[in-house]
């Protein structure tokens, strides 16, 4: 895992000192609320519905056991004993007091963490595949590049007041578990003629104008990463619209100017930025790469794992759902579900954080990941240790075997926390999860991504859910619009709107009609919902939702 350099340590300490002074200057009137706003945002402090919210970065989703324990300490000392893991590999605390936040920032710096640029019109926390460095299918671990981008973008003097927020995502695998096509810049590590580089997509994003990113550069050699990114962001800084907040994201800049004109500007700008970098960044990248060396994997045989699967049906079921192939044959990637049926997706109590930290130390070389599906991943576990790990997870209530199923829902905070929400999203997620478990349909339906947003800003990524649910306000009444056929990853697609929305209590029955239609229509048990949808289109599902007449009309 990456260890802070002396430079990093000095930086986060100094930044904490600056933020403490900013809070004091807000309180003594040196800074107006308007002026303080971007400064607190670039330090992760939001003003929510009920209180301030602090969003802490978990860079590229990687976190150590001691860091996880520190989050538990923060939850107990300054919040209500729990935290919320988000879709962008951050953790949010919803109840800190403004005057306490400088102390929290200091506590984060103690364990090489920070909340820098988790908000505001800045380059945000770079996200990646939660299985990075462990997955069997990756070209290379994308995290060294993510760390390089973190360093470059942190406090970048030109890019702290961009037209809007700016999100990078990077994947090391063609399977793209980082949803790169719906980010402002999406990167895929590729190799060409023995040379390492990235494929660059630009202008993807969700929100009120969802768009799939377009190809900007098919192959960018590793040596040119930073100058090229700098060319993209500085072009955007000047070209991006500042007259209308809803048209300020780079997706609109690219859309309005056209990808070819945008590329031309970037490439021209790249000539200038390329000349600025001397190559020291490549040296630093090499040093970063060394920090991400994998742990010394154990050699234990897998017999005990196979034997436990043969005799224990619970373990067998969990293994089938929550394990992913590891690059080392006798290891597995474990996903610990934070989606227990009926609970808030992504929430973890301080007790659970401590248990996870302990288990990571005992069974996973001390390393944990936060996935963008809001679960916790133990990236390296010897198969021999899985039965013992499972038993402990079971005792702690963390063994829900639902990864990739109906109840593994992504939901934004919605009306329960968010000042912008037009509808509830967490209770909808809870009811869907509980209902399909109760009627026993969850396992039968199999692979399914349901994503829920509480307003048009789409933080719950509903556009790219196989089933997307968007909560709106229709004359003071919650109304939920359903989209179908969205997807992330290599086949990224924006879901189709089905038709008129549904009242709060009609949502679960509507989802059930879709799922039952799918079970009738699928070619076999191994055809997932999204594949049936692609084969047949939206029509039969609309019919299931609204009846035949509407479709004929």
């Amino acid at each position, binding site marked *: 895992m990456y260890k802070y350099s002396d430079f990093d340590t*000095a930086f986060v300490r100094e930044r904490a000192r600056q933020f403490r002074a900013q809070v004091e200057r807000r309180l003594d009137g040196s800074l107006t609320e308007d002026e303080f706003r971007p400064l607190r945002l670039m330090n992760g402090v939001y003003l929510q519905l009920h209180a301030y919210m602090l969003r802490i970065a978990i860079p590229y989703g990687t976190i150590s056991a001691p860091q996880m324990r520190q989050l538990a300490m923060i939850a107990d000392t300054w919040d209500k004993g729990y935290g919320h893991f988000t879709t962008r590999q951050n953790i949010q605390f919803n109840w800190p007091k403004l005057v306490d936040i400088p102390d929290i920032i200091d506590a984060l710096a103690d364990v090489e963490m920070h909340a820098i640029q988790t908000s505001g019109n800045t380059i945000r926390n770079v996200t990646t595949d939660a299985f990075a460095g462990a997955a069997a299918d990756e070209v290379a671990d994308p995290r060294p590049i993510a760390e390089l981008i973190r360093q*470059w973008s942190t406090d970048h003097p*030109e890019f702290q007041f961009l037209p809007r927020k700016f999100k990078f995502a990077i994947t090391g695998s063609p399977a793209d578990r980082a949803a790169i096509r719906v980010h402002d810049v999406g990167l895929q590590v590729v190799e060409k003629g023995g040379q390492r580089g990235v494929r660059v997509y630009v202008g993807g994003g969700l929100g009120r104008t969802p768009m799939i990113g377009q190809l900007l550069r098919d192959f960018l050699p590793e040596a040119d990463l930073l100058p090229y990114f700098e060319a993209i962001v*500085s072009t955007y800084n*000047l070209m991006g619209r500042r007259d209308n907040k809803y048209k300020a994201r780079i997706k609109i800049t690219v859309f309005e100017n056209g990808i070819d004109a945008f590329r031309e500007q970037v490439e021209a*700008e790249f000539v200038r930025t390329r000349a600025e970098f001397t190559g020291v960044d490549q040296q630093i990248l090499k040093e970063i790469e060394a920090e991400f060396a994998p742990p010394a994997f154990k050699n234990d045989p897998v017999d005990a794992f196979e034997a436990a699967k043969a005799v224990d049906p619970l373990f067998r079921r969990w293994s089938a759902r929550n394990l992913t192939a590891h690059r080392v044959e006798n290891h597995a990637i474990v996903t610990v579900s934070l989606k227990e049926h009926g609970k808030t997706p992504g929430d973890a109590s301080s007790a659970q954080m401590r248990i996870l930290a302990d288990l990571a130390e005992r069974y996973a070389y001390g390393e944990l990941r936060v996935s963008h599906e809001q679960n916790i991943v133990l990236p390296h576990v010897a198969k021999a240790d899985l039965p013992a790990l499972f038993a402990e997870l079971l005792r702690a209530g963390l063994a829900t075997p639902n990864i990739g199923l109906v109840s593994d829902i992504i939901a934004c905070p919605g009306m329960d926390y968010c000042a912008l929400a037009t509808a509830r999203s967490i209770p909808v997620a809870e009811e869907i999860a509980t209902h399909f478990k109760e009627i026993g349909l969850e396992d039968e339906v199999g692979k399914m991504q349901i994503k829920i947003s509480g307003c048009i800003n789409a933080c719950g990524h509903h556009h790219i859910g196989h089933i997307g649910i968007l909560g709106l306000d229709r004359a003071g009444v919650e109304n939920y619009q359903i989209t179908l056929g969205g997807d992330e990853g290599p086949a990224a697609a924006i879901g189709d709107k089905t038709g008129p929305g549904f009242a709060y209590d009609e949502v679960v029955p509507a989802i059930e009609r879709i799922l039952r239609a799918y079970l009738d229509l699928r070619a076999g048990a191994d055809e997932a919902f999204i594949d049936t949808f692609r084969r047949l289109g939206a029509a039969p599902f609309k019919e299931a939702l609204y009846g035949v007449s509407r479709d004929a009309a």
Partner: protein
Amino acid sequence: MSVIVRDDGFHAEDWVGEITEVPADTAIAAVAGLAAAGQGGMLRVAFPSFADGRGFTLGRRLRDAGFTGRLRAAGPVLADQYAMARRSGFDEVEIPDDLAARQPEDQWLFRADWREGSYRARLQG
């Protein structure tokens, strides 16, 4: 009136030469021309609001285009943005009097250490 901020604190206006204005919405294509036209004098880049970060990129580009004269950021820039302006190639910042009264000299001197702790500078080499 306005106050000029440099690494050693507040100053009254002391520039006597030519000033070429650089609006915040300067087109990318116009940067090279401005850098040449302003050479030997001052380029004064407008910051219409503290939330508008275009000026930082304009400053960087003017420097890269070869401008070696006095480069000034002018507008309601915050003390917290002083380091960003210096790192983007500006020599000084010109702020309105009321802002200088609300954010006195010590708050600007707090960031006179802008050469320290810059990831961007470290990576550039």
